[in-house]
């Protein structure tokens, strides 16, 4: 009888869960109904969980299970990517909140309560929870385990969790028509089942062999496709020279101050840290306040005139680590090298003084696209990597890297919208997420941005443009699939209109032309053709000629995007 779960065993359980998921990543990916090459559930869940495991391993299992669960939640939160990754992180976050930090172990009743708390948290994170997904599987498993309150044996409980998860998973095609048509179960739910399977194995004291043929656990660094964000520093557009528009005297709080507070400091009496309380006081010291905290560590970022005061205040809650203080006025002077030009008859000063504190962050893949977005006013680009799946941490870093208080975020992929919404909850700045489901939409919306308008006006005009525009994408199917009436073979070329598959053809250019015909019917005025890294310019120009010949009234534009996987992007208005 296994009645107590301590940190050591918990670490083993989650590690085994992660291992089992990793072994089955491709199986989970294959369940994705949508055959497009990015946004794979298996990969996203695996990367998310791997980040959590890494954080747990750093913390070590010598402490309480509560603290370990926190490390797990923190790691998951930062590494969360894609819808399924974010939901997974919320499941464990809710779980960890309910586990008492002082306890060295939990019993089954406490464990089950924590699992149910995880389900509640996950449901809250999703604006429109859909049944027949990972949420349903988690919910059913937790409910079934709840009925098992009478058992104090962890093995029983975990078995029940696994079996009811599996049962719920088998039901998912009945709940979601698209699964039924495709003849598959829900990918996210399957991922969760693999995790539970691994967890049970650990409890049974079995080695990893019991899970199946050997597969070595890859070191995290090889697994995680580090998005470009970490190699190049965040790009700040200097052609706008918005910085130049803000004179040093206008910088109200001159010292960018960052530090960590070790909330576990115990050799002297400290005040208990609460985000609200800390915020209240910190806000009187300056602005651009950002706090990310868990039970052990608080990361603080603030712009203040009196960094000493901020540090002194923070010390009440624990020792300070990683202190960084920058004099922004001096930094700013370096940025403003560009001389204002000879004063023309037009008086520019008024224009410049009205430039507001904005930053636009866009998630992209493709060097040409980066240039395009920058010239339309984007300030920071988050590299989405091949599969366009940045983590919450990646987005947070981008948001933190700008000094503007009004941030507009363009996720540019269906799978990043939830990640973006979660990241936004963690910062103090005002971040407006414009729900662009692909890069073409991102471009269309960006045209509506005007630095002279306030954030509500910009949000309204960008959303209006989203409505008025149509987007097209041409990519290749990575697996066989049946979507509505389309029978797709791996290797077929797909034409997507506003994210929906409308065209399937074994010939790339035919797929592109047919898609164009669908996009340009009715009242289209303009089209921009953006070609990716696998397309030669001459071939892209063939498409341009096709449009110019068949649709002579439509204004055209062709740009090099350099994006992977999507041969063509079409932005139509």
């Amino acid at each position: 009888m296994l009645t107590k779960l301590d940190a050591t065993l918990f670490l083993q359980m989650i590690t085994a869960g992660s291992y089992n998921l990793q072994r089955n990543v491709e199986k989970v990916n294959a369940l994705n109904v949508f055959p497009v090459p990015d946004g794979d559930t298996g990969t996203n869940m695996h990367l998310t969980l791997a980040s959590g495991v890494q954080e747990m391993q750093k913390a070590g299992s010598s402490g309480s299970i509560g603290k370990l669960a926190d490390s797990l939640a923190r790691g998951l939160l930062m590494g969360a990517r894609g819808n399924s990754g974010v939901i997974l992180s919320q499941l464990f976050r809710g779980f960890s909140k309910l586990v008492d930090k002082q306890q060295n172990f939990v019993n089954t009743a406490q464990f089950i309560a924590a699992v149910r708390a995880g389900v509640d948290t996950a449901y809250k994170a999703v604006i429109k929870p859909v049944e027949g997904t990972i949420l349903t599987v988690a919910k059913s498993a937790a409910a079934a385990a709840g009925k098992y309150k009478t058992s104090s044996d962890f093995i029983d409980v975990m078995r029940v969790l696994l079996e009811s998860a599996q049962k719920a998973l088998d039901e998912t095609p009945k709940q979601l028509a698209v699964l039924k048509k495709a003849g598959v179960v829900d990918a996210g739910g399957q991922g969760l089942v693999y995790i539970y399977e691994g967890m049970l194995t650990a409890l049974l004291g079995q080695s990893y062999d019991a899970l199946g043929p050997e597969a070595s656990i890859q070191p995290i660094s090889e697994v995680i496709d580090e998005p470009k964000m970490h190699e190049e520093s965040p790009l700040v557009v200097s052609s706008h020279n918005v910085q130049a528009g803000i004179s040093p005297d206008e910088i109200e709080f001159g010292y960018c101050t960052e530090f960590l507070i070790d909330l576990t400091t115990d050799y002297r009496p400290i005040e208990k840290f609460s985000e609200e309380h800390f915020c209240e006081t910190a806000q009187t010291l300056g602005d651009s306040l950002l706090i990310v905290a868990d039970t052990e560590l608080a990361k603080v970022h603030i712009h203040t005139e009196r960094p000493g005061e901020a540090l002194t205040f923070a010390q009440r809650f624990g020792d300070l680590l990683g202190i960084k203080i920058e004099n922004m006025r001096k930094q700013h002077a370096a940025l403003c090298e560009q001389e204002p030009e000879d004063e023309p008859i037009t008086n520019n000063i008024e224009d410049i003084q009205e430039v507001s504190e904005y930053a636009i962050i866009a998630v992209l893949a493709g060097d040409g696209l980066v240039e395009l977005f920058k010239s339309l006013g984007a300030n920071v680009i988050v590299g989405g990597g091949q599969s366009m799946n940045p983590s919450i941490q990646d987005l947070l870093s981008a948001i933190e890297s700008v000094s503007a208080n009004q941030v507009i975020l363009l996720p540019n992929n269906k799978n990043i919208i939830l990640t973006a919404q979660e990241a936004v909850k963690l910062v103090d700045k005002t971040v407006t997420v414009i729900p662009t489901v692909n890069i073409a939409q991102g471009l269309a919306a960006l045209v509506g941005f005007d630095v002279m308008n306030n954030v509500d006006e910009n949000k309204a005009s960008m959303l209006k443009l989203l409505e008025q525009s149509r987007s097209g994408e041409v990519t290749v199917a990575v697996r066989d699939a049946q979507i509505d009436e389309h029978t797709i073979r791996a290797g077929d070329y797909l034409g997507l209109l506003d994210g929906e598959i409308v065209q399937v053809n074994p010939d790339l250019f035919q797929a592109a032309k047919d898609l164009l015909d669908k996009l340009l019917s009715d009242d289209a005025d303009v089209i921009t053709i953006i070609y990716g890294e696998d397309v030669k310019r001459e071939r892209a120009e063939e498409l341009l000629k096709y449009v110019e010949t068949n649709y002579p009234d439509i204004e055209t534009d062709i740009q090099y995007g350099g994006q992977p996987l999507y041969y063509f992007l079409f932005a139509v208005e």
Partner: protein
Amino acid sequence: MAKIKIITDSSSDIPGEVSRHLNISTVPIKIEFEGKSYTDRVTLDTEEFYSRFEQSESIATTSQPSPADFHSTFVQAVQDGYTQLLSVHLSSTLSGTYQSALIARGMLLEEYPDIELQVLDTKTASYATGIAVVAAAKLLQESEQTTLEDCIKIIEEYTKKSKLFVIPATLKYLERSGRISKASAMVGTLLNIVPILSVTDDGKIGVVDKVRGSKKAMRRIKELLQQSLTPGSPISLAVLHANNYEGAQQLFSILSEDQNIVDSLIVPIGPAVGVHTGPGLLAAVALSV
């Protein structure tokens, strides 16, 4: 009996036949082009200008008429028997022409202290100024009772009520000549983005909106104009173009659809303004009358 003379400069883009018919004197702007000096629409006509402009390597510039140029026009009017002169010009923030006219006024009043001479800054440009000048001149022609105050009033009314919206074919000339700030000019021509410009209340050029596609831009101009026009009212409309007659016709038909246009004109933009806008530009001026 006071005789009133209306004077303007060539940047008002009043078509030659119209100004002759309405007895408006026009002082020409000076154009420096390919190393030579020209007087706007006197020694350099519009057609020739545009056909040479695009091929030309050199940068063309303009300079305001000198006070002496204004002075001689004023003196001529006085000698022709006019006792009240009204000199009407484009925004002083866009050109030194108004200043020049003011200086000339000082010179004239020293010699002819009994003459009344008013100089007006319309705070706008091209035919948005021209349309007001024409309205005043028409008023003069209609009735002998028209006073100088009447003329000034109608010019002020027109310049206040009229709205001018501009679709440039490119922003590079406007930026180069400093008429549009660098921040405003940061509008890409990618994605067929077309900026829509206007003149602010204090006479400067600014970007009002940007849309994709010139057709959309024309429709947007219609929307913008409708915001300021009284619904159903009779409208005076002028469509201006810099060597883009076809575009002007397209814009005109979009703007005049379902509207009660009582007075309309398609106006070619001359070299004085064309140097700064570049060719291809389209604009519309409209007001409820």
